[in-house]
Protein backbone atom coordinates (compact mmCIF):
# COMPACT_ATOMS: atom_id res chain seq x y z
CA UNK A 1 0.00 0.00 0.00
CA UNK A 2 1.28 3.46 -0.83
CA UNK A 3 2.49 5.08 2.34
CA UNK A 4 1.86 8.75 1.76
CA UNK A 5 -1.43 10.46 1.16
CA UNK A 6 -0.21 12.13 -2.00
CA UNK A 7 0.50 8.88 -3.84
CA UNK A 8 -2.63 7.26 -2.43
CA UNK A 9 -4.82 10.02 -3.88
CA UNK A 10 -3.00 9.77 -7.17
CA UNK A 11 -3.41 6.00 -7.28
CA UNK A 12 -7.10 6.17 -6.39
CA UNK A 13 -7.79 8.67 -9.13
CA UNK A 14 -5.83 6.73 -11.72
CA UNK A 15 -7.81 3.64 -10.78
CA UNK A 16 -11.06 5.28 -11.75
CA UNK A 17 -10.24 7.68 -14.58
CA UNK A 18 -10.38 6.11 -18.02
CA UNK A 19 -9.51 7.84 -21.28
CA UNK A 20 -12.36 8.84 -23.53
CA UNK A 21 -12.24 7.74 -27.13
CA UNK A 22 -12.89 9.90 -30.15
CA UNK A 23 -15.90 7.67 -30.81
CA UNK A 24 -17.39 8.55 -27.43
CA UNK A 25 -16.80 12.22 -28.07
CA UNK A 26 -18.30 12.06 -31.53
CA UNK A 27 -21.32 10.07 -30.33
CA UNK A 28 -22.25 12.96 -28.05
CA UNK A 29 -22.14 15.49 -30.83
CA UNK A 30 -25.69 16.75 -31.28
CA UNK A 31 -25.72 16.08 -34.99
CA UNK A 32 -24.19 12.70 -34.24
CA UNK A 33 -22.05 12.13 -37.30
CA UNK A 34 -20.71 8.62 -37.45
CA UNK A 35 -17.06 8.83 -36.45
CA UNK A 36 -16.29 5.99 -38.78
CA UNK A 37 -18.23 5.29 -41.90
CA UNK A 38 -20.27 2.17 -41.89
CA UNK A 39 -19.84 -0.20 -44.77
CA UNK A 40 -22.72 1.50 -46.53
CA UNK A 41 -21.03 4.85 -46.26
CA UNK A 42 -17.91 3.52 -47.84
CA UNK A 43 -19.66 1.65 -50.58
CA UNK A 44 -22.53 3.94 -51.42
CA UNK A 45 -22.19 7.42 -52.82
CA UNK A 46 -25.76 8.21 -51.93
CA UNK A 47 -25.36 7.37 -48.28
CA UNK A 48 -22.14 9.29 -47.85
CA UNK A 49 -23.77 12.34 -49.35
CA UNK A 50 -26.40 12.15 -46.64
CA UNK A 51 -23.77 11.69 -43.99
CA UNK A 52 -21.88 14.68 -45.27
CA UNK A 53 -25.00 16.79 -45.22
CA UNK A 54 -25.75 15.75 -41.65
CA UNK A 55 -22.21 16.32 -40.55
CA UNK A 56 -21.95 19.66 -42.30
CA UNK A 57 -25.09 20.84 -40.57
CA UNK A 58 -24.19 19.98 -37.03
CA UNK A 59 -20.49 19.49 -36.71
CA UNK A 60 -18.80 21.24 -39.58
CA UNK A 61 -15.85 22.17 -37.47
CA UNK A 62 -15.28 18.80 -35.86
CA UNK A 63 -12.59 16.36 -36.67
CA UNK A 64 -14.79 13.70 -38.14
CA UNK A 65 -17.09 16.09 -39.90
CA UNK A 66 -14.16 17.86 -41.40
CA UNK A 67 -12.76 14.68 -42.76
CA UNK A 68 -16.09 13.43 -44.02
CA UNK A 69 -16.85 16.68 -45.76
CA UNK A 70 -13.43 16.99 -47.22
CA UNK A 71 -13.01 13.43 -48.34
CA UNK A 72 -13.38 12.51 -51.95
CA UNK A 73 -16.35 10.24 -52.40
CA UNK A 74 -15.19 6.66 -52.65
CA UNK A 75 -15.75 4.82 -55.87
CA UNK A 76 -18.60 2.33 -55.86
CA UNK A 77 -17.11 -0.76 -54.32
CA UNK A 78 -18.54 -3.93 -55.72
CA UNK A 79 -15.58 -5.98 -54.66
CA UNK A 80 -14.23 -6.51 -51.19
CA UNK A 81 -10.74 -5.50 -52.26
CA UNK A 82 -11.63 -1.91 -53.21
CA UNK A 83 -9.10 0.52 -51.75
CA UNK A 84 -10.25 2.34 -48.66
CA UNK A 85 -10.59 6.09 -48.88
CA UNK A 86 -7.84 8.40 -47.70
CA UNK A 87 -10.22 9.95 -45.18
CA UNK A 88 -11.04 6.55 -43.72
CA UNK A 89 -7.39 5.65 -43.29
CA UNK A 90 -6.70 9.01 -41.67
CA UNK A 91 -9.53 8.38 -39.24
CA UNK A 92 -8.08 4.98 -38.34
CA UNK A 93 -4.75 6.61 -37.62
CA UNK A 94 -6.32 9.42 -35.59
CA UNK A 95 -8.58 7.14 -33.57
CA UNK A 96 -5.69 4.81 -32.80
CA UNK A 97 -3.37 7.61 -31.76
CA UNK A 98 -5.96 9.09 -29.44
CA UNK A 99 -6.97 5.72 -27.97
CA UNK A 100 -3.34 4.81 -27.30
CA UNK A 101 -2.19 8.27 -26.28
CA UNK A 102 -2.19 7.69 -22.55
CA UNK A 103 -1.88 4.08 -21.54
CA UNK A 104 -2.08 0.47 -22.58
CA UNK A 105 -0.03 -2.61 -23.24
CA UNK A 106 1.58 -4.08 -26.31
CA UNK A 107 3.37 -7.21 -27.33
CA UNK A 108 6.04 -6.48 -29.90
CA UNK A 109 7.72 -9.36 -31.71
CA UNK A 110 10.62 -8.80 -34.02
CA UNK A 111 12.31 -11.33 -36.26
CA UNK A 112 15.18 -10.71 -38.61
CA UNK A 113 16.07 -13.17 -41.34
CA UNK A 114 18.90 -12.95 -43.79
CA UNK A 115 19.39 -15.16 -46.76
CA UNK A 116 16.43 -17.18 -45.50
CA UNK A 117 18.13 -17.85 -42.18
CA UNK A 118 16.93 -16.52 -38.84
CA UNK A 119 19.29 -13.89 -37.52
CA UNK A 120 17.59 -12.80 -34.34
CA UNK A 121 14.23 -12.59 -32.67
CA UNK A 122 12.89 -10.76 -29.69
CA UNK A 123 9.63 -10.22 -27.86
CA UNK A 124 8.87 -7.12 -25.83
CA UNK A 125 5.95 -7.07 -23.41
CA UNK A 126 5.37 -3.36 -23.03
CA UNK A 127 3.24 -1.48 -20.56
CA UNK A 128 2.94 2.28 -20.75
CA UNK A 129 1.21 4.95 -18.77
CA UNK A 130 2.08 8.50 -19.73
CA UNK A 131 5.85 8.75 -19.58
CA UNK A 132 6.18 5.61 -17.48
CA UNK A 133 7.18 2.42 -19.24
CA UNK A 134 7.88 -1.19 -18.48
CA UNK A 135 9.58 -3.34 -21.08
CA UNK A 136 9.94 -6.99 -20.19
CA UNK A 137 11.73 -8.54 -23.10
CA UNK A 138 13.24 -11.75 -24.31
CA UNK A 139 15.98 -11.68 -26.87
CA UNK A 140 17.11 -14.75 -28.73
CA UNK A 141 20.47 -14.20 -30.36
CA UNK A 142 21.68 -16.29 -33.23
CA UNK A 143 25.32 -16.72 -34.13
CA UNK A 144 26.31 -18.48 -37.33
CA UNK A 145 22.86 -19.98 -37.64
CA UNK A 146 22.92 -21.36 -34.11
CA UNK A 147 20.24 -20.13 -31.75
CA UNK A 148 21.63 -19.29 -28.34
CA UNK A 149 19.78 -19.45 -25.04
CA UNK A 150 17.25 -16.65 -24.67
CA UNK A 151 18.14 -13.65 -22.60
CA UNK A 152 15.55 -11.79 -20.60
CA UNK A 153 15.54 -8.52 -18.76
CA UNK A 154 13.25 -5.74 -17.68
CA UNK A 155 13.71 -2.08 -18.46
CA UNK A 156 11.51 0.34 -16.60
CA UNK A 157 11.00 4.08 -16.49
CA UNK A 158 9.09 5.61 -13.59
CA UNK A 159 8.82 9.35 -13.08
CA UNK A 160 11.83 9.99 -15.28
CA UNK A 161 14.01 7.45 -13.48
CA UNK A 162 15.52 4.43 -15.22
CA UNK A 163 15.56 0.94 -13.75
CA UNK A 164 17.03 -2.29 -15.09
CA UNK A 165 16.46 -5.82 -13.92
CA UNK A 166 19.62 -7.37 -15.25
CA UNK A 167 22.83 -9.09 -14.31
CA UNK A 168 25.42 -6.46 -13.55
CA UNK A 169 28.09 -5.82 -10.95
CA UNK A 170 25.94 -7.06 -8.06
CA UNK A 171 24.40 -9.99 -9.88
CA UNK A 172 20.79 -10.29 -10.98
CA UNK A 173 18.96 -7.41 -9.33
CA UNK A 174 17.12 -4.20 -9.92
CA UNK A 175 19.45 -1.36 -10.71
CA UNK A 176 18.48 2.28 -10.53
CA UNK A 177 20.48 3.84 -13.32
CA UNK A 178 21.33 7.48 -12.91
CA UNK A 179 22.80 9.95 -15.33
CA UNK A 180 21.49 12.35 -17.94
CA UNK A 181 21.12 9.67 -20.61
CA UNK A 182 19.87 6.89 -18.38
CA UNK A 183 16.30 6.82 -19.66
CA UNK A 184 17.25 7.21 -23.31
CA UNK A 185 19.81 4.43 -22.99
CA UNK A 186 17.11 1.90 -22.17
CA UNK A 187 16.02 2.19 -25.79
CA UNK A 188 12.47 1.11 -25.04
CA UNK A 189 10.58 0.84 -28.34
CA UNK A 190 7.36 2.81 -28.58
CA UNK A 191 5.04 0.57 -30.62
CA UNK A 192 2.74 3.49 -31.34
CA UNK A 193 5.40 4.75 -33.74
CA UNK A 194 4.22 2.03 -36.12
CA UNK A 195 0.96 3.91 -36.54
CA UNK A 196 2.82 6.26 -38.86
CA UNK A 197 2.57 3.47 -41.42
CA UNK A 198 -1.17 4.15 -41.68
CA UNK A 199 -0.72 6.28 -44.75
CA UNK A 200 -3.62 6.84 -47.13
CA UNK A 201 -1.18 6.39 -50.01
CA UNK A 202 -0.63 2.80 -48.93
CA UNK A 203 -3.78 1.74 -50.75
CA UNK A 204 -5.34 -0.32 -47.98
CA UNK A 205 -7.87 -2.93 -48.97
CA UNK A 206 -10.13 -5.12 -46.90
CA UNK A 207 -9.02 -8.71 -46.54
CA UNK A 208 -11.77 -9.98 -44.28
CA UNK A 209 -12.98 -10.41 -40.75
CA UNK A 210 -10.84 -11.88 -38.00
CA UNK A 211 -10.53 -12.09 -34.24
CA UNK A 212 -7.52 -10.72 -32.36
CA UNK A 213 -7.38 -11.43 -28.64
CA UNK A 214 -11.11 -12.02 -28.57
CA UNK A 215 -11.89 -8.75 -30.36
CA UNK A 216 -13.73 -8.79 -33.67
CA UNK A 217 -11.54 -6.99 -36.16
CA UNK A 218 -11.26 -6.23 -39.81
CA UNK A 219 -8.08 -7.23 -41.58
CA UNK A 220 -6.68 -4.55 -43.88
CA UNK A 221 -3.68 -4.91 -46.16
CA UNK A 222 -1.58 -2.26 -47.85
CA UNK A 223 -1.17 -2.65 -51.59
CA UNK A 224 0.95 0.38 -52.45
CA UNK A 225 4.12 -0.08 -50.47
CA UNK A 226 6.63 1.93 -52.45
CA UNK A 227 6.00 5.25 -50.77
CA UNK A 228 5.81 4.07 -47.17
CA UNK A 229 8.25 5.55 -44.71
CA UNK A 230 10.82 3.45 -42.92
CA UNK A 231 9.69 2.15 -39.56
CA UNK A 232 10.77 4.51 -36.83
CA UNK A 233 11.76 1.86 -34.34
CA UNK A 234 15.13 0.85 -32.95
CA UNK A 235 16.62 -2.20 -34.56
CA UNK A 236 15.37 -1.52 -38.05
CA UNK A 237 18.14 -0.58 -40.40
CA UNK A 238 17.79 2.51 -42.53
CA UNK A 239 17.38 2.13 -46.23
CA UNK A 240 14.87 -0.68 -46.14
CA UNK A 241 11.76 -1.04 -48.23
CA UNK A 242 8.44 -1.99 -46.72
CA UNK A 243 7.43 -5.27 -48.33
CA UNK A 244 4.27 -6.12 -46.40
CA UNK A 245 1.89 -4.23 -44.15
CA UNK A 246 -1.19 -5.70 -42.51
CA UNK A 247 -3.44 -4.02 -39.99
CA UNK A 248 -6.31 -5.36 -37.90
CA UNK A 249 -8.75 -2.72 -36.67
CA UNK A 250 -11.76 -3.01 -34.38
CA UNK A 251 -15.22 -1.58 -34.98
CA UNK A 252 -14.16 1.75 -33.48
CA UNK A 253 -11.33 2.08 -35.97
CA UNK A 254 -8.62 1.41 -33.40
CA UNK A 255 -5.66 -0.70 -34.46
CA UNK A 256 -5.55 -3.91 -32.46
CA UNK A 257 -2.67 -5.47 -34.33
CA UNK A 258 -0.21 -4.40 -36.99
CA UNK A 259 2.42 -6.36 -38.84
CA UNK A 260 5.04 -4.87 -41.12
CA UNK A 261 8.01 -6.31 -42.97
CA UNK A 262 10.99 -4.39 -44.25
CA UNK A 263 13.61 -5.78 -46.59
CA UNK A 264 16.98 -4.49 -47.64
CA UNK A 265 19.98 -5.76 -49.48
CA UNK A 266 23.07 -6.31 -47.36
CA UNK A 267 26.60 -7.16 -48.31
CA UNK A 268 27.84 -10.33 -46.67
CA UNK A 269 31.51 -10.76 -45.98
CA UNK A 270 33.17 -13.81 -44.53
CA UNK A 271 33.78 -13.05 -40.89
CA UNK A 272 37.26 -14.45 -40.95
CA UNK A 273 38.33 -11.82 -43.45
CA UNK A 274 37.72 -9.04 -40.98
CA UNK A 275 38.33 -8.32 -37.39
CA UNK A 276 35.25 -7.16 -35.53
CA UNK A 277 35.00 -3.44 -34.93
CA UNK A 278 35.64 -2.57 -31.34
CA UNK A 279 32.14 -1.32 -30.66
CA UNK A 280 30.50 -4.58 -31.64
CA UNK A 281 29.82 -7.00 -28.81
CA UNK A 282 28.75 -10.46 -29.74
CA UNK A 283 26.67 -11.94 -26.99
CA UNK A 284 27.41 -15.60 -26.70
CA UNK A 285 24.95 -16.45 -23.99
CA UNK A 286 24.20 -15.59 -20.42
CA UNK A 287 23.14 -12.15 -19.33
CA UNK A 288 25.14 -9.27 -20.63
CA UNK A 289 24.46 -5.80 -19.41
CA UNK A 290 25.20 -4.11 -22.71
CA UNK A 291 23.27 -6.66 -24.69
CA UNK A 292 20.23 -6.44 -22.47
CA UNK A 293 20.07 -2.70 -22.45
CA UNK A 294 20.52 -2.46 -26.16
CA UNK A 295 19.92 -5.93 -27.48
CA UNK A 296 19.34 -4.72 -30.97
CA UNK A 297 22.53 -2.75 -31.05
CA UNK A 298 24.51 -5.92 -30.52
CA UNK A 299 22.51 -8.02 -32.90
CA UNK A 300 23.93 -9.83 -35.86
CA UNK A 301 22.05 -7.38 -38.05
CA UNK A 302 23.91 -4.49 -36.47
CA UNK A 303 27.10 -6.41 -36.72
CA UNK A 304 26.46 -6.89 -40.40
CA UNK A 305 25.91 -3.19 -40.81
CA UNK A 306 29.21 -2.52 -39.15
CA UNK A 307 30.86 -4.92 -41.47
CA UNK A 308 29.29 -3.22 -44.43
CA UNK A 309 30.48 0.11 -43.17
CA UNK A 310 33.98 -1.24 -42.87
CA UNK A 311 34.06 -1.33 -46.62
CA UNK A 312 35.02 -4.90 -47.03
CA UNK A 313 34.73 -6.14 -50.54
CA UNK A 314 36.74 -9.31 -50.93
CA UNK A 315 34.42 -12.28 -51.28
CA UNK A 316 31.38 -10.11 -50.74
CA UNK A 317 27.88 -11.13 -51.82
CA UNK A 318 24.49 -9.57 -51.32
CA UNK A 319 21.65 -11.12 -49.40
CA UNK A 320 18.15 -9.97 -48.56
CA UNK A 321 17.64 -9.11 -44.93
CA UNK A 322 14.01 -8.99 -43.82
CA UNK A 323 12.80 -7.61 -40.53
CA UNK A 324 9.24 -8.36 -39.51
CA UNK A 325 7.61 -6.56 -36.62
CA UNK A 326 4.23 -7.48 -35.25
CA UNK A 327 2.60 -5.47 -32.52
CA UNK A 328 -0.56 -6.45 -30.69
CA UNK A 329 -2.12 -3.80 -28.50
CA UNK A 330 -3.87 -4.80 -25.29
CA UNK A 331 -5.73 -2.93 -22.57
CA UNK A 332 -5.96 0.02 -24.93
CA UNK A 333 -6.51 3.20 -22.96
CA UNK A 334 -6.89 1.31 -19.72
CA UNK A 335 -5.02 2.61 -16.68
CA UNK A 336 -1.71 0.89 -16.05
CA UNK A 337 0.19 0.97 -12.79
CA UNK A 338 3.96 1.09 -13.20
CA UNK A 339 5.85 1.61 -9.99
CA UNK A 340 9.49 1.89 -9.08
CA UNK A 341 11.06 -1.33 -7.79
CA UNK A 342 10.88 -1.64 -4.03
CA UNK A 343 14.63 -1.78 -3.74
CA UNK A 344 17.15 -1.05 -6.43
CA UNK A 345 20.90 -0.67 -6.40
CA UNK A 346 21.84 2.79 -7.55
CA UNK A 347 24.48 2.83 -10.22
CA UNK A 348 25.81 5.69 -12.24
CA UNK A 349 26.86 5.75 -15.82
CA UNK A 350 25.41 2.46 -17.01
CA UNK A 351 23.44 4.46 -19.50
Amino acid sequence: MATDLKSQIHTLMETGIHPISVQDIASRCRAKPAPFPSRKVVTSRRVITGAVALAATGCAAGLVATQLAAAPSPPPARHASAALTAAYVRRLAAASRVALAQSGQAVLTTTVTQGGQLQQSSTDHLTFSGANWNDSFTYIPTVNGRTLPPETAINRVVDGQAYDYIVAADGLAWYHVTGPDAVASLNIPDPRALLTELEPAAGFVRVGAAVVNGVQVEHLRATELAGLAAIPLPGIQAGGQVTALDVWVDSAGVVQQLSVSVSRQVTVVALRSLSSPKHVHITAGGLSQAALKRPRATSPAQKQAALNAAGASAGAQTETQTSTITVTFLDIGQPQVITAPGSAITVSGLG
Partner: protein
Amino acid sequence: MRQAASEIRPPDGADQDRGRDFEAFVVATQPRLSRALAAAYGFEDGRDATAEALAYAFEHWDELQHVANLPGYLFRVGQTRGRRRRSRVLFAVPEGDEHPFEPALPTALASLTERQRLAVVLVHGYGYSLREVSELTGIKLTTVQTHLTRGLARLRATLGVTDGDRS
Protein backbone atom coordinates in the same frame (compact mmCIF):
# COMPACT_ATOMS: atom_id res chain seq x y z
CA MET B 1 -26.19 20.01 -55.79
CA ARG B 2 -24.00 22.13 -53.57
CA GLN B 3 -23.36 19.39 -51.10
CA ALA B 4 -22.13 17.06 -53.76
CA ALA B 5 -19.79 19.73 -55.03
CA SER B 6 -18.14 20.07 -51.66
CA GLU B 7 -18.15 16.35 -51.20
CA ILE B 8 -15.98 15.57 -54.14
CA ARG B 9 -13.35 18.20 -53.69
CA PRO B 10 -10.06 16.78 -52.48
CA PRO B 11 -9.10 17.33 -48.86
CA ASP B 12 -7.24 20.57 -48.54
CA GLY B 13 -4.50 21.38 -46.09
CA ALA B 14 -6.67 23.55 -43.89
CA ASP B 15 -9.20 20.78 -43.26
CA GLN B 16 -6.51 18.31 -42.44
CA ASP B 17 -4.82 20.80 -40.15
CA ARG B 18 -8.08 21.40 -38.29
CA GLY B 19 -8.53 17.68 -37.80
CA ARG B 20 -5.02 17.29 -36.51
CA ASP B 21 -5.40 20.35 -34.29
CA PHE B 22 -8.47 18.90 -32.63
CA GLU B 23 -6.87 15.52 -32.19
CA ALA B 24 -3.78 17.10 -30.65
CA PHE B 25 -5.98 19.20 -28.42
CA VAL B 26 -7.83 16.14 -27.14
CA VAL B 27 -4.59 14.32 -26.41
CA ALA B 28 -3.11 17.31 -24.60
CA THR B 29 -6.17 18.45 -22.69
CA GLN B 30 -8.08 15.33 -21.82
CA PRO B 31 -5.89 14.23 -18.87
CA ARG B 32 -6.26 17.43 -16.84
CA LEU B 33 -9.88 17.91 -17.82
CA SER B 34 -10.67 14.32 -16.81
CA ARG B 35 -8.80 14.67 -13.54
CA ALA B 36 -10.46 17.94 -12.64
CA LEU B 37 -13.98 16.84 -13.49
CA ALA B 38 -13.49 13.46 -11.83
CA ALA B 39 -12.27 15.24 -8.71
CA ALA B 40 -15.31 17.46 -8.75
CA TYR B 41 -18.02 14.94 -9.66
CA GLY B 42 -16.55 11.50 -9.18
CA PHE B 43 -15.40 8.93 -11.67
CA GLU B 44 -18.65 8.27 -13.51
CA ASP B 45 -20.07 11.76 -13.74
CA GLY B 46 -16.61 13.21 -14.24
CA ARG B 47 -16.07 11.00 -17.24
CA ASP B 48 -19.45 11.91 -18.60
CA ALA B 49 -18.81 15.60 -18.08
CA THR B 50 -15.42 15.34 -19.77
CA ALA B 51 -16.91 13.60 -22.77
CA GLU B 52 -19.65 16.20 -22.99
CA ALA B 53 -17.13 19.03 -22.78
CA LEU B 54 -14.96 17.54 -25.50
CA ALA B 55 -18.03 16.91 -27.64
CA TYR B 56 -18.88 20.57 -27.23
CA ALA B 57 -15.37 21.44 -28.40
CA PHE B 58 -15.86 19.02 -31.27
CA GLU B 59 -19.02 20.81 -32.35
CA HIS B 60 -17.70 24.35 -31.93
CA TRP B 61 -14.08 23.90 -32.83
CA ASP B 62 -13.78 26.87 -35.16
CA GLU B 63 -15.51 29.27 -32.78
CA LEU B 64 -13.41 28.12 -29.85
CA GLN B 65 -10.14 28.98 -31.55
CA HIS B 66 -10.43 32.47 -30.14
CA VAL B 67 -10.90 31.38 -26.53
CA ALA B 68 -7.75 32.22 -24.61
CA ASN B 69 -8.09 29.56 -21.91
CA LEU B 70 -9.83 26.74 -23.69
CA PRO B 71 -9.25 24.03 -21.06
CA GLY B 72 -10.73 26.34 -18.43
CA TYR B 73 -13.65 27.12 -20.70
CA LEU B 74 -14.32 23.45 -21.28
CA PHE B 75 -14.08 22.73 -17.58
CA ARG B 76 -17.01 25.07 -17.10
CA VAL B 77 -18.84 23.42 -20.00
CA GLY B 78 -18.30 20.09 -18.26
CA GLN B 79 -19.54 21.52 -14.98
CA THR B 80 -22.73 22.71 -16.61
CA ARG B 81 -23.47 19.43 -18.29
CA GLY B 82 -22.15 17.22 -15.49
CA ARG B 83 -24.32 18.71 -12.83
CA ARG B 84 -27.39 17.14 -14.32
CA ARG B 85 -26.39 13.65 -13.33
CA ARG B 86 -24.86 13.23 -9.92
CA SER B 87 -23.75 9.76 -8.88
CA ARG B 88 -24.34 8.82 -5.29
CA VAL B 89 -20.96 7.17 -4.96
CA LEU B 90 -18.29 9.48 -6.27
CA PHE B 91 -15.25 7.23 -6.22
CA ALA B 92 -16.47 3.69 -6.68
CA VAL B 93 -13.65 1.16 -6.94
CA PRO B 94 -14.07 -2.51 -7.80
CA GLU B 95 -14.90 -4.55 -4.73
CA GLY B 96 -12.78 -7.48 -3.77
CA ASP B 97 -9.64 -6.12 -5.39
CA GLU B 98 -6.76 -5.18 -3.18
CA HIS B 99 -6.03 -1.52 -3.79
CA PRO B 100 -2.84 0.28 -2.87
CA PHE B 101 -4.65 2.96 -0.90
CA GLU B 102 -6.56 3.28 2.34
CA PRO B 103 -9.98 1.64 1.98
CA ALA B 104 -11.53 4.71 3.58
CA LEU B 105 -9.90 7.13 1.14
CA PRO B 106 -12.69 7.16 -1.50
CA THR B 107 -15.31 7.97 1.11
CA ALA B 108 -13.10 10.49 2.88
CA LEU B 109 -12.38 12.25 -0.39
CA ALA B 110 -16.06 12.29 -1.25
CA SER B 111 -16.82 13.95 2.07
CA LEU B 112 -14.86 17.07 1.12
CA THR B 113 -16.52 19.96 -0.60
CA GLU B 114 -16.27 20.05 -4.38
CA ARG B 115 -13.67 22.81 -4.33
CA GLN B 116 -11.67 21.16 -1.59
CA ARG B 117 -11.58 17.97 -3.61
CA LEU B 118 -10.44 19.85 -6.69
CA ALA B 119 -7.59 21.48 -4.78
CA VAL B 120 -6.55 18.35 -2.91
CA VAL B 121 -6.65 16.01 -5.90
CA LEU B 122 -5.05 18.33 -8.44
CA VAL B 123 -2.43 19.98 -6.23
CA HIS B 124 -1.68 17.24 -3.75
CA GLY B 125 -2.45 14.16 -5.83
CA TYR B 126 -1.20 15.28 -9.24
CA GLY B 127 1.30 17.98 -8.34
CA TYR B 128 -0.36 20.82 -10.25
CA SER B 129 0.59 24.31 -9.19
CA LEU B 130 -1.96 26.55 -7.52
CA ARG B 131 -1.89 28.75 -10.61
CA GLU B 132 -2.63 25.83 -12.94
CA VAL B 133 -5.60 24.81 -10.82
CA SER B 134 -6.78 28.39 -10.67
CA GLU B 135 -6.63 28.75 -14.45
CA LEU B 136 -8.37 25.46 -15.06
CA THR B 137 -11.16 25.83 -12.55
CA GLY B 138 -11.63 29.57 -12.51
CA ILE B 139 -11.16 29.65 -8.75
CA LYS B 140 -8.98 32.46 -7.40
CA LEU B 141 -5.44 31.37 -6.65
CA THR B 142 -5.62 32.31 -2.98
CA THR B 143 -8.93 30.50 -2.68
CA VAL B 144 -7.39 27.35 -4.14
CA GLN B 145 -4.74 27.56 -1.43
CA THR B 146 -7.39 27.91 1.25
CA HIS B 147 -9.38 24.95 -0.06
CA LEU B 148 -6.21 22.90 -0.26
CA THR B 149 -5.24 23.61 3.32
CA ARG B 150 -8.68 22.95 4.71
CA GLY B 151 -9.30 19.95 2.51
CA LEU B 152 -6.05 18.29 3.48
CA ALA B 153 -6.66 18.96 7.15
CA ARG B 154 -10.09 17.44 6.93
CA LEU B 155 -8.89 14.48 4.92
CA ARG B 156 -6.10 13.77 7.40
CA ALA B 157 -8.50 14.04 10.30
CA THR B 158 -10.97 11.68 8.66
CA LEU B 159 -8.30 9.13 7.85
CA GLY B 160 -6.48 9.57 11.14
CA VAL B 161 -3.24 10.44 9.39
CA THR B 162 -0.63 12.10 11.54
CA ASP B 163 1.59 15.06 10.78
CA GLY B 164 4.33 12.70 9.67
CA ASP B 165 2.46 12.25 6.41
CA ARG B 166 2.68 15.88 5.38
CA SER B 167 4.62 15.23 2.21
